[in-house]
């Protein structure tokens, strides 16, 4: 093993080849080691704030944060032993003492990473609770994002995301010590700040301190009772991957999209990021204005509801009539770059094969 000490480290006795910019965390994870993290996110610069990822490095007296420590060739790392487990257990117990019960986070519909981790490391749950002294931004009229100070552990994932990924720096760590909180400048509403409501803070928060307002109002079911469906956003041309959170029993069993969440970082093309439209603009799906029956115009200009077969026969007859009277090229087919590839294929096939015209286009051919 010492032969290739130039380019490898040892993780729990197993040699791992190093890659450029490897930290102990990235190399160890590649070696299959499980290292808990709270403040870490692949998209952010590591800060080593939460101390969850401490590991033992041969020749070093103290445990070191693996997310922040560059992997030096030849290092020998242990990620799991009694000392590390005791550290993790005490750390999680301290976090929980300044936090809420696991059951109380159900309403965010996303499992709290903190509580999962505490359970995983067997942290004692019966330590005395502290009264939180973090300042809450009590009245924030923004419609989407809620900050719950009692759940915050000041890991700063949200503020770093807001700085480093979204680059709007709307929220920041403020105060000191156990009063450290997540604030806006002058504690104004996010609506009046530089916030662009991307909701990335919600997606990265490991404790449910940053959460979504809308589903809370709707008494959302816990995450375990929702089905996640990976799909592609329907707004701009980036093609972000997102997860529909579906309550399958809602809407008389048709199912309802109750929330949209980001996939894991590393899911391309959006690397797990979403914008305000992708994450929040889905109310239209269940809007009362949705059309639910074909309509045929009466002679007086009013509309009447019609069954599908009748409406389709009427549409076919109308279009064929124009073709008979004026020729196929008197027909125009406007397809849509909002619809699927398959539907666009069918529109042009309809125009060409069924009606005999190439008058087929959509608004997006520039």
């Amino acid at each position, binding site marked *: 093993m010492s032969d290739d000490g130039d380019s490898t480290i040892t993780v729990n006795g197993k040699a791992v080849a190093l890659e450029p910019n490897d930290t102990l965390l990235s190399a160890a994870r590649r070696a299959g080691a499980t290292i808990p993290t709270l403040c870490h996110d692949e998209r952010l610069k590591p800060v080593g704030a939460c101390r969850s990822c401490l590991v033992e490095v041969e020749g070093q007296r103290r445990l070191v944060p693996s997310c922040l420590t560059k992997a030096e060739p030849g290092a020998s790392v242990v990620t799991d032993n009694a000392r590390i487990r005791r550290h993790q257990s005490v750390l999680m117990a301290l976090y929980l003492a300044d936090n809420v019960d696991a059951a109380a986070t159900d309403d965010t519909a996303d499992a709290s990473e903190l509580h999962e981790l505490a359970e995983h490391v067997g942290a004692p749950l019966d330590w005395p609770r502290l009264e939180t002294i973090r300042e809450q931004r009590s009245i924030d009229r923004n419609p989407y994002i809620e900050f719950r100070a009692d759940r915050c552990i000041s890991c700063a994932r949200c503020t770093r995301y807001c700085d*480093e990924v979204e680059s709007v720096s709307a929220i920041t760590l403020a105060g000191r010590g156990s009063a450290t909180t997540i604030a806006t400048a002058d504690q104004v509403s996010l609506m009046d700040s530089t916030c662009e409501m991307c909701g990335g803070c919600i997606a990265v928060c490991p404790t449910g301190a940053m959460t979504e307002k809308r589903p809370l109002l709707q008494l959302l079911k816990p995450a375990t009772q929702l089905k996640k469906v990976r799909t592609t956003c329907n707004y701009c041309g980036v093609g972000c991957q997102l997860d529909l959170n579906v309550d399958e029993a809602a809407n008389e069993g048709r199912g309802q999209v109750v929330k949209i969440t980001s996939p894991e970082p590393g899911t391309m093309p959006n690397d797990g990021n979403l914008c*305000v439209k992708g994450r929040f603009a889905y109310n239209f799906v269940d809007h009362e204005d949705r059309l*639910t029956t074909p309509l045929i115009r009466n002679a007086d200009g009013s509309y009447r509801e019609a069954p599908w077969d009748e409406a389709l026969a009427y549409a076919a007859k*109308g279009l064929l009539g124009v073709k008979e009277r004026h020729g196929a090229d008197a027909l125009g087919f406007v397809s849509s770059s909002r619809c699927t590839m398959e539907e*666009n294929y069918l529109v042009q096939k309809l125009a060409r*094969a069924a009606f005999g015209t190439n008058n087929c286009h959509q608004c997006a051919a*520039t």
Partner: protein
Amino acid sequence: MAGLVTTFGAGAMTNSIPEIRDAEFLFVIGSNTSEAHPIIAMEMKRAVARGATMVVADPRRIWMTTIADRHLMLRPGTDVWLLNAMANVIISEGLTDPEFIERNTEQFEDVVAAVAEYTPEQAEIITGVPAEDIRRTARQYATTEKAGIYYTLGITEHSHGTDNVYALSNLVLMTGHLGKPSAGLNPLRGQNNVQGANDAGASPVFYPGYQRVDDPAAQAKYEQLWGTKLSPEPGMNLNVMMKAVGDQIRGLFVMGEDILLSEPNVKRLEEGMNGLEFLVLQDLFLNETARFADVILPAACFVEKDGTFTNSDRRVQLVRKGVEPPPGALADWEILKRLANAVGMSWSYEHPREIYREMAQSVPNFAGISHERISERNDGLQWPCLDDEHPGTKFLHEGGVLRGKGQFQAVQYRPSYELADDDYSLLLSTGRTLYHYNAATQTRRAPGLHAKQPEPFIEIHPKDARRRGIAHGDWVSVTTRRGQVECRAIVSRQVRRGCIWMPLHYAEARANLLTVDAGDPVTQTAEYKVCAAEVVKLRDGDGANTFPGSFYAAGGPGVVATPAE
């Protein structure tokens, strides 16, 4: 699309979105990226944070200019001058890539001749961009290895949009910034499936995969596939079709577009609609166009159906059904199938994957793509993808330009169709905001987005506002030769003097009552970005702080960075 097909042989982003973060030089022109493509903007922000240089060319001060090394605040519609002047600098200072030009391109000498007159000093007079800024940008672009250009409709929605694309292509070809990661020419698509709709042949001149309808071989292929005779006559493109509505066009089928909100010069279109004999509309909601429809067919939205969208970087990704449509609505593909069968076809598709398969087998570049393959991946498949083993293509032109030889296209500046004059002394541009999307039938039904931007507005420069007695927040009338709308005035230095800007999202103040339908001679894409307009005060605002927190509002975060005049 047409411009890049001519010059490179494929109309799509040459790079992938994840490559943007590794770029060393980013030239962003005619793209309000942080509002229209927020996620791509995140990649650009990451590149800049890493140390990349970004130059933004835009008539407006947009968010991206706050992190750019340089903002080239050019006059609307003068892009060809700016870009030809950059080419002039690159050629005259010997910064071209002669080896790449020799091996991969043709007709470079045309461009050399054409741009000789376009000196940076002359360009400064026309564009308003300092000559030295043009020089420095050209030098940095030419001498940086990973240099990418990113553009959107600020380039294409002009009566000289194709010329703009040619001028950009020329810069790419003369510097050899092609066929490499993070270096290329990248149109950022505005709708989820712009690329897919074009790839699928929703085009008057192309079958799927850009096979021309007047190519007998392509015609024969589709006649065999579809079992029917087909017309070799290229059809009307959208702009021509809209102008012919009520005249040559007597019957219209419209799926998923509110043409009376989205097409330019809608007043004339509305008159034409009265001459239609039959209109079939297929949509989620009643919209402006519905007033003229004979039949309206209720469609399912994206969470209620299966299929694929192809994004800006040629990535075919699955759209998965999460919920059932409302009772009575059907997926568009099902409606189309039943409509086709009602006119005598016998289409039997049971699932969109069968439709994709039929299309993919007729296009070599898509042959390796299927719903089944994509569902096994978490990053889609990027065309060209030639067979079932092919991994897809992250960036184009790696083994040489797809067209064979990259085609230089010399272009000369042509002024926009309509310029400011004594009667209409301001230049109006239209665009999108972060909080709304196109006709806004979806986003204006989201309470939070509505709260952020509830009303139509224009941005007007303080000096232009003062001269007209307009204060921030006042209600004004915006008039052009085609129409008039009312909206709030945002007095802001984000726009140039003499220029106003207006979002296109509001049905009660349809920007497209104002725009011109003069089209680009090649694509017929209309000039949404420049027309002459005048603004008159109607009544005082109510003193409300309009759009608090908006980057562009007076007192908004964006204004802080604005130097005083």
